[in-house]
């Protein structure tokens, strides 16, 4: 197990190196070069010259790259041109909000998607199956930000059931402990703050869950259909086992394997979706921050975010691989 972790962490190094080369070249290709990337597009020539010197742009390329790499290794992702704060600090500040949102979205997608896909497969061709399949096909085709707008328009603006923006009502003075609003409320005993945070989370999480949900429903359904016909399910039936045992131990357990992998691969699309949904709901997580960074051409933030995301993605897939090896003995590392 430990060896798998170490090996995967080592694999992260070439990925990040490759990414850093790409990003370095990208920064170099930006209109105006890295100086304007750091200073913004309205920099004066004197400022550009100063930055170029400071960045060592008069030096050979490999020296420049080496410096760039060193900075990243020290988690020095530069300074945001919008806020003037170090990019890394901005991320750390906002990351918990996005984690909360993404976790809830994945939770919704799995909790609804797996049973739905399973029962759809069991009643193949029935009304539930037709509804689930066509629903998930339509779900994939709805642009996430449009769904978010509609949800907000109906449930927040028209019906007023949920708040329409932010993470917490301004009237609530929540104590900040971990940065995770729901968790903080529980830790400090301010349950009204937790509740308020949950209400703020629901609409964006539902919008964000739409695509993972559609994927998980279809994946589970296809997987169950395939496993149902496996020889070992027939063996289990031949043993006269109770239906519930056949279904849970022999069908579902095997059918979950590809779904677990899919959850890991969905992380990427989840983060894209977070940028869109967070900005619709002005959620205040990394997504909203990136949205404003895109608007303001805040390149240090974008570069930092790409490196940051790559790390998160690899780590999440590492976790998924570990979970996978727990349920599939064939890939277990001894």
């Amino acid at each position, binding site marked *: 197990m430990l060896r798998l972790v170490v090996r995967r962490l080592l694999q992260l190094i070439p990925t990040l190196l490759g990414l850093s080369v790409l990003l370095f070249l990208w920064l170099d290709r930006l209109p105006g070069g890295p100086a304007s990337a750091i200073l913004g597009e309205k920099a004066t020539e004197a400022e550009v010259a100063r930055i170029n010197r400071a960045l060592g742009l008069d030096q050979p390329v490999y020296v420049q790259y080496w410096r760039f790499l060193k900075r990243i290794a020290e988690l020095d992702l530069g300074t945001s041109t919008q806020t003037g704060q170090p990019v890394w600090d901005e991320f750390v500040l906002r990351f918990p909000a996005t984690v909360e949102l993404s976790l809830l979205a994945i939770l919704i997608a799995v909790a609804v998607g797996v049973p739905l896909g399973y029962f759809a497969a069991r009643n193949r061709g029935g009304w539930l199956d037709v509804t689930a399949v066509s629903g998930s096909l339509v779900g994939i085709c709805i642009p996430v930000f449009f769904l978010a707008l509609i949800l907000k328009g109906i449930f927040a603006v028209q019906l007023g059931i949920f708040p329409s923006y932010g993470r917490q009502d301004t009237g609530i003075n929540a104590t900040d402990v971990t940065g995770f609003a729901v968790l903080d409320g529980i830790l400090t005993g301010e349950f009204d703050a937790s509740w308020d945070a949950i209400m703020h989370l629901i609409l964006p999480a539902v919008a964000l869950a739409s695509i993972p949900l559609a994927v998980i429903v279809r994946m589970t359904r296809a997987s169950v259909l395939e496993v149902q016909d496996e020889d070992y399910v027939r*063996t289990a039936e*031949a*043993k*006269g*086992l109770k239906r519930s045992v056949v279904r849970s131990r022999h069908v579902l357990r*095997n059918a979950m394997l590809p779904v677990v992998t899919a959850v890991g691969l969905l992380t990427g699309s989840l983060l894209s979706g977070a940028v869109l949904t967070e900005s619709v709901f002005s959620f205040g997580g990394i997504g909203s921050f990136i949205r404003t960074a895109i608007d303001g051409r805040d390149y240090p933030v974008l570069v930092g975010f790409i490196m940051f995301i790559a790390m998160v993605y690899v780590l999440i897939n590492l976790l998924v691989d570990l979970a996978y090896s727990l349920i599939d003995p*064939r890939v277990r590392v001894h």
Partner: protein
Amino acid sequence: MSLLTVDELTVTFGGRGRKASRAVDGVSFEVDQGQVVGLVGESGCGKSVTSLALMGLLPAKGLTIGGRAEFDGTDLFTMSPSARRDLRGSEMAMIFQDPLSSLNPVVPIGVQVTEILERHRGMKGEAARKEAAHLLDRVGIPDPTRRLKEYPHQLSGGMRQRALIAMAVACAPRLLIADEPTTALDVTIQAQILELLKELVDQEGTALLMITHDLGVVAGLCDQVNVLYAGKVVESAGRRELFAHPTHPYAHGLLGSIPRLDAPRGEPLNPIRGSINDRIAWADGCAFAPRCDRYEMGCLSGTPQLGEPRAAGHQVRCVNPVLDDAKAEEVPA
């Protein structure tokens, strides 16, 4: 009375909009207590479908089962699904062809054995594990307590088949159905598995329905042999009688197609020409006619009936049977 009586069993796939195809077309045979009965034929003749129909393992949708199958006096096809479930694994059990795909890859061998003990013998926990280890030991798996914790991919092919056999005999069933249990194994392992089956049958008095295309398996194991062609029994006889006097041209051809070590050098092999796809519907005549050397016009006037042209109890479905013993085989020991 026989333990299992199969009477005019038919299995039809499709229908309702799609073209129906009849995989089993009126198969009748019997299995007595403690008897080993062979169901022989090439792939596609309906032998596996027959066994799955008897076990109740065919999918519920998209096919119709006709005829009767009585197990110990009760009709299998009219009994309730839950009664059938109680019967499966305890009274009648089955061993499958491909041991790797027939075992659940993500569940330890031990659980796959104990779950059947829990279900039918009410055993739990340590007692079930002990019995499971005993079963594995009995089918010749060395170091059974360790094997219980292992997964199918960690076992060799022969071991996997032994494990499957252990599961099948866990509740001392009265009927064991083995569907080509040795096809996926190495030749040396095949012999061991057959030996094991023979031993279990002899010791327990279990009846065994052996589904196979391998005449060697038949010669070594079966008391009674039914030869299937295109969903119908074409010849049924005791083992000695069948090997001595194969009378249906198909059975005759099957036995004749086995290469012989004592044949003179240079003598050509005698395959049956064509494949099972070159067939005509039984309603029009003998399905084997397109491949048959002895085919004549009479073969095409309706389904040939079973008769006993040679000896009592030796049934043959043919209008022009092989009655001259020119190429009869030696009787195996």
